[in-house]
C-alpha cells in the first residue's frame, strides 16, 4: 500500500491548489455578486451594425 503515499501527495497537492484558488476567488470578490454573472453570459458582444459600417 506504499503507493497510497503517492496518491495522497498528488491528491492533496491538487486539493491544495484548488483550495488556494477557492480562497483567491472568495477574497478577490469573484463571488460577491451571485446574480449578475448568470445573466451577463446571455448577452452577445457583437458590435452594433452601425459601428460595423464605420470600420
Amino acid at each position, binding site marked *: 500500500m506504499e503507493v497510497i503515499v503517492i*496518491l495522497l501527495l498528488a*491528491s492533496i497537492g491538487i486539493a491544495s491548489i484548488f483550495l488556494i484558488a477557492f480562497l483567491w476567488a472568495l477574497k478577490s470578490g469573484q463571488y460577491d455578486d451571485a446574480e449578475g454573472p448568470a445573466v451577463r453570459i446571455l448577452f452577445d458582444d*457583437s458590435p452594433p451594425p452601425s459601428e460595423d459600417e464605420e470600420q
Partner: protein
Amino acid sequence: MQLEKFSYDNKIVKMFAFATILWGMVGFLAGLFAALQLVFPELNFTAETTYGRVRPLHTNAAIFAFVGNGIFMGVYYSLQRLCKARLWSDKLSYFHFWGWQTIIVAAAVTLLLGFTQGKEYAELEWPIDIAIAVVWVAFGINMMMTILKRRESHLYVAIWFYIATWVTVAMLHIVNSGAIPLHFMKSYSVYAGMQDALVQWWYGHNAVAFFLTTPYLGLMYYFLPKAANRPIYSYRLSIIHFWALIFIYIWAGPHHLLYTSLPDWAQSLGVVFSVMLIFPSWGGMINGLFTLRGAWDKVREDPVLKFMVVAVTAYGMATFEGPMMSLKNVNAISHYTDWTVAHVHVGTLGWNGFLTFGVLYWLIPRIFQTKMYSTKLMNAHFWIGTLGIIIYVIPLYWAGWTQSIMWKTFTADGVLQYNFLETVTHILPMYGLRAFGGFLFIIGAGIMVYNIMKTVQSGQLLDNEAAEAAPRPSLISTDKKYQGAHWHRWIERRPIQLLVLSLILVSIGGLVQIVPAFLVKSNVPTIPSVQPYTPLELHGRDIYIQDGCYNCHSQMIRPFRDEVARYGDYSKAGEFVYDHPFQWGSKRTGPDLARVGGKYPDSWHYYHMIDPTSMAPGSIMPAYPWMVWKEINVDLTPGMIRVMQSLGVPYPEGYDQIAIDDLYEQANEIADNLKNQTGENVLATSEIVAIIAYLQRLGTDVSKEGPAVEKQEVEEQ
C-alpha cells in the same frame, strides 16, 4: 470607457466540431462492431479485429476522440465569449487540434496492432502517452493565457470547471502512465499488483470524473442557459456544486475494487466518498433542470433543449446509480456484470452523447450564420437516439442481474447450479437487443451528420466573429487592499506564466520519478511461495495483454461462496506482487482466470485457443488459430528480465543472460507435451506455447511450497 475591438476564432471551433462528429461515428461504429462480436463470434476475423482489441479502440475513441474533441469544441467556443477575448494563440490552437487528431489516429492503429499497456482507458503505449501530455499542456497554456488576458473580471462557473478538468487530468495521466519502456512500443507499469490496481482505478474513476463529467458540466452551465435564453436557476448553487464536486471526486476510485485484495479500509474510504458524491451531482442536475422552470414550452419546440434535458436527466440517473453501485452489498451483485456496462452507457450515450448533440445543433448554425437545415430531422434524431439508449441499457441491466443471480445460484445439494457458459448463452438474446439499441443510436447520429452537412452547405462560416468589450477593470472587488498587488497582475506582465505552469507539471513529474524507488521495496513478497514469472510466462503474459484478454476475463476471485466454489480460493494481495501491470479486469464476459493454472491439460488450452467451441460448445470467445504459427520475439527476453529487475522483481543477478535457455527448456517441454497429447508438432516459440505457459501458471503458486533457499533470501531482503 473605450471599447476594444477584437474577434472570436470560430474556425477552430468548427474544426473541433467536425472532428467530434467524425470520431463520434467511428467510436459508435466500433462499439456496434464489438457488440455484434459478442453475439456473432465469427466476426473476430484476424488478430487485429478480435474483441479484446476492438473494445479498447471503442472506449478510447468514445472517450478521448468523441468526448475529447467535444470538450475542446465547447471550451474554445464558450471560453472566448466568457472571457471576452480571442483565444490567446491561434498557432497553439491549431497545434492542439492537429496534435490531438494525430494522437487519435496513432491510438487507433496501435491498439488494433496490439500495442497496449493493458490498463483500461489508459491502454496507449508510452510514446503516445508523452504526446498526450504535450498536447494537453498546449491546451492548458492556451486556455490559461486566454483567461489571464480576459476582459471580463468575473470567472463564470463554466471556466472553473474547465480549469479543474485541465489540472486534474494532467496529474492523473502522469501518475498512472508511469512505466518503464522495453522498446519503442512496449512498456511495463512501474506499479505492481494491488498497488497498480489502486493507481489505475484512482485514475480510471477520475477519468470519468474529470474527462466525462467536469468539462461537460462546464458546457452545461454555458450552453443550457444560452439555448434556453435564461440564466442558470441558481448561480450560488453552481458555485457550491463546483467546489463540492472537485473536492470529493478524487477519492471515489476504490469503489471499482470492492471485495478485491485491496485493504478493507481503502475500500470503505472509496464507498464513503462515492456516497457523498450524490449531493453535488444532484445539485448540478437540479440546477440544470430548474433553469427550464417556466420554460418547458420551449423544450417542447426546441430540439436543442430536448437533447439537453435528456442529457442532464441521464447525468442525474447515472450519478444516483453510481453511489448505489458503490455500496458493497450492491456491488457484490453488480461487479463483473453488464450492469456496469449499462451504467456507463447511460452516462456516455445519454449525458455526453446528447449534450454534445445539443451543443452541436446550437453552435453549428451560429458559426455558419444560418439556421439548422431541418428541425424535423433534429426531432427524428432525438427520438431515435432516445429509443436507442433505452433499448441499449434495459436489456443490459436485465442481462447483468440475470447473470449475477445465475452465478450465485446453488442447488439444494449445495453445488453450483449453472456452469459459467450457461450463464453466458442465457443472456445472448439481451446482447442482441443491446446491439440493436446501439444501432438505433447510430442511425440517429447519422441523421445528424446529414442534417449538419446540409446546414453547413447552406451557410458560410464566420471565421472571425467581430466583438467588442471594455478592457478589464483592474479589480472587481471594492476591497482596496488587493488592488494592483494581485499575484496575477504581476504574472501577467511577464512571460513567466509558462514557467509557473511547467513548474507544476515538473513537480508532479518529479513525484512520479520517486515512485519506482518507493515501490521496489514494497514488492517484497508476503507469500513466500509466490515466485517471479519464468521468461516464457512473461512472454505469455505479454500476449495476454496484447490481445486484451483482460477485457473479458478477471483475475480476482472475491471472497464469496459461489466464487470460491467456482474458481477456487479467494485472491490475496501477495499473489500479485510481480504483476506489472495488474490484470484483475473489471468484467466477466468469460470466467475468472486467477486460478486457471493446472485446471485443464495443455492440450485443452491448445484446442480451446484454436477454436473455443471445440472445448466449450456455444462459447462466444474469439478463436485464435494464428497463435499456432505466430512466434514470440525471443530476443526481447534479456531486456524483459532487466526491466523487471529494475522494477524490483528478484531475478538473480545476471539472469538476463541465461533467461533464454530457461525459456527454451520450458517451451520445449510444453511443445513435447502437446505432441504427446495431440499428435501435432507445435513450434516451441509459437505464441500458443507461451500463452499456455502463462495460463498454466496462474494461481498455482499459493498451493505449493516455495523452495527453502529462496524463502530465506526473501526474509533477508
